[in-house]
């Protein structure tokens, strides 16, 4: 099954690149030889993520200016809808009148429908260095600034809500509970723990609702934003929605549990020292929600994996289950557990995936 998925993805990728290359040439763009975002475990993400359509994210250059560009190409109806939705989000985001701070987005160079394809070309934001290579103080400052920028868009009134609901979508406490029930339906061995997590979310639904209506990037991790000078550019605008203020924080902190524990600790310390106890509770509940999601995600990869990748995905489920158990107990997971998991992950990851990960964060 795993090989079938991989082969199917590789066939799709190669066919689409072959078909789209001359179109891009006519439009004034040339593709790079190496396309890291089409390799490694990308096929698995595509097979498991049902929300978005099939699309390719390619790197290339503008033949006139020689500037680097990011090219998103799709011919699937869902993929086209996603690209159009993302574009609308970018436009509306720039126009939101009730946001107190502005967001930066990479410049759109081209958006075109040609034949079966929808093609979106954006300027590539060249970073001086990846986010995780910056000093911890810089990382903290950048992350906090990004969260504050998101929080400054609060759809508090009837008029605000009406403006944003159709564009970005919104999530209330009942939506988070329904979402978690879907995660629980995934067949995994953490049933009892997830039931406990669901009970916590249910009991804390008032707190979740209290901090609702804020703009939040649901996939706010270093590969979805780029830093140039002092400016932060948000990528993947289709992951923006109005929901709990701490949903984006939760995704970021869960990511940092694995990638940068001092940053996780610093951000938790910041929330504890500067915000209300209800806000800390809201953050914890959102972390629980996002952990349920990641456990479900990797559970769904199991039937599509084999060999080392299957063992890796099982290790991922076990690791995130440990993190969830710790979060439910109001503590962070032990460093030894994180280190052990990293060792296992690095021993099981394919070379191609290791290559894809270089400089990604």
């Amino acid at each position, binding site marked *: 099954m795993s090989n079938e998925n991989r082969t199917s993805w590789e066939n799709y990728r190669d066919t689409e690149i072959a078909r789209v290359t001359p179109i891009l040439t006519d439009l004034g763009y040339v593709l790079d030889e190496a396309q890291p975002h089409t390799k490694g475990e990308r096929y698995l993400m595509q097979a498991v993520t049902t929300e978005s359509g099939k699309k390719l994210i390619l790197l290339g250059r503008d033949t006139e200016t020689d500037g680097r560009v990011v090219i998103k190409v799709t011919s699937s109806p869902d993929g086209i809808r996603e690209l159009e939705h993302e574009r609308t989000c970018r436009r509306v985001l720039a126009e939101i009148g009730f946001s*107190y701070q502005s967001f930066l987005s990479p410049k759109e160079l081209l958006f075109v429908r040609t034949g079966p394809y929808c093609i979106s070309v954006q300027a590539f934001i060249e970073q001086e260095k990846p986010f995780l290579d910056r000093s*911890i*103080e810089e990382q*903290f400052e950048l992350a906090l600034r990004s969260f504050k920028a998101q*929080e*400054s868009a*609060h759809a*508090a*009134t*009837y*008029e605000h*809500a009406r403006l944003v609901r159709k564009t970005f979508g919104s999530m209330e406490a009942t939506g988070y509970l329904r979402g978690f029930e879907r995660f629980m339906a995934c067949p995994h061995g953490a049933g009892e723990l997830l039931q406990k997590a669901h009970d916590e979310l249910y009991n804390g639904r*008032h707190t979740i*609702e*209290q*901090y609702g209506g804020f703009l939040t990037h649901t996939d706010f991790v270093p590969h979805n934003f780029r830093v140039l000078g002092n400016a932060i550019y948000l990528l993947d605008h289709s992951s923006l929605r109005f929901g709990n*203020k701490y949903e984006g924080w939760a995704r970021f902190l869960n990511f940092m549990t694995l990638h940068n524990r001092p940053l996780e*600790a*610093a951000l938790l*310390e*910041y929330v504890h*020292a*500067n915000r*209300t106890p*209800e*806000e800390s509770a809201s953050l914890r509940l959102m972390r629980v929600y996002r952990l349920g999601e990641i456990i479900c995600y990797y559970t769904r990869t199991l039937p599509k994996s084999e060999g080392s990748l299957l063992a890796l995905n099982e290790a991922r489920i076990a690791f995130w289950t440990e993190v969830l158990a710790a979060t439910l107990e109001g503590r962070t997971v032990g460093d030894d557990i994180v280190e052990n998991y990293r060792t296992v992950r690095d021993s099981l990851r394919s070379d191609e995936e290791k290559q894809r990960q270089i400089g990604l964060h």
Partner: protein
Amino acid sequence: MRIAIATPLYPPDIAEPAPYVKELAARLSGKHEITIVTYGRFPEEIPGVRIVAVSKQRPLPIRLALYTFALLSVGSRTDVIYALNGPSVELPASIASFLTRTPLIAFLGDASAHARAQQRSALKHLEETFLRRACTTVSHTPLQHPEILPFSPYPNEKMEAFNRSWKAHLEELEAALLYV
């Protein structure tokens, strides 16, 4: 003294004057009986402070009317209405103060609302009516709470300045309450 604080914003709203109102109510609650009238669904609680929240999830005329009724109800049982500027409070506070004969103290704490009022004649007229209705106006705005950042020393000086500014603000407010 029984004080009604009328505000357009209150946490979880993050923009000023929301944090100011929470800080003010917490500082006054030991000495006075405080009721906050605000817009919102799930306001952050303060021990010993009553909060009346009017949902923002209704069209503007309806929420303005509901807010006015809420302030009339609270204002009739308080000694003073302390109202922040901004049209969504200026109108209800002026009406509630007039109908209940409860003294009104105005606070020009929302600089952006004040700036907007200077640009649009209807808003300017509303703000002027609100200020005329008030028996006194408080203008000193205390500093915002300094942030405590993980990689920086504890902001002792900023914290002292913050507390000094609040002391001055509360002295001005207590002096204003003497007019009532």
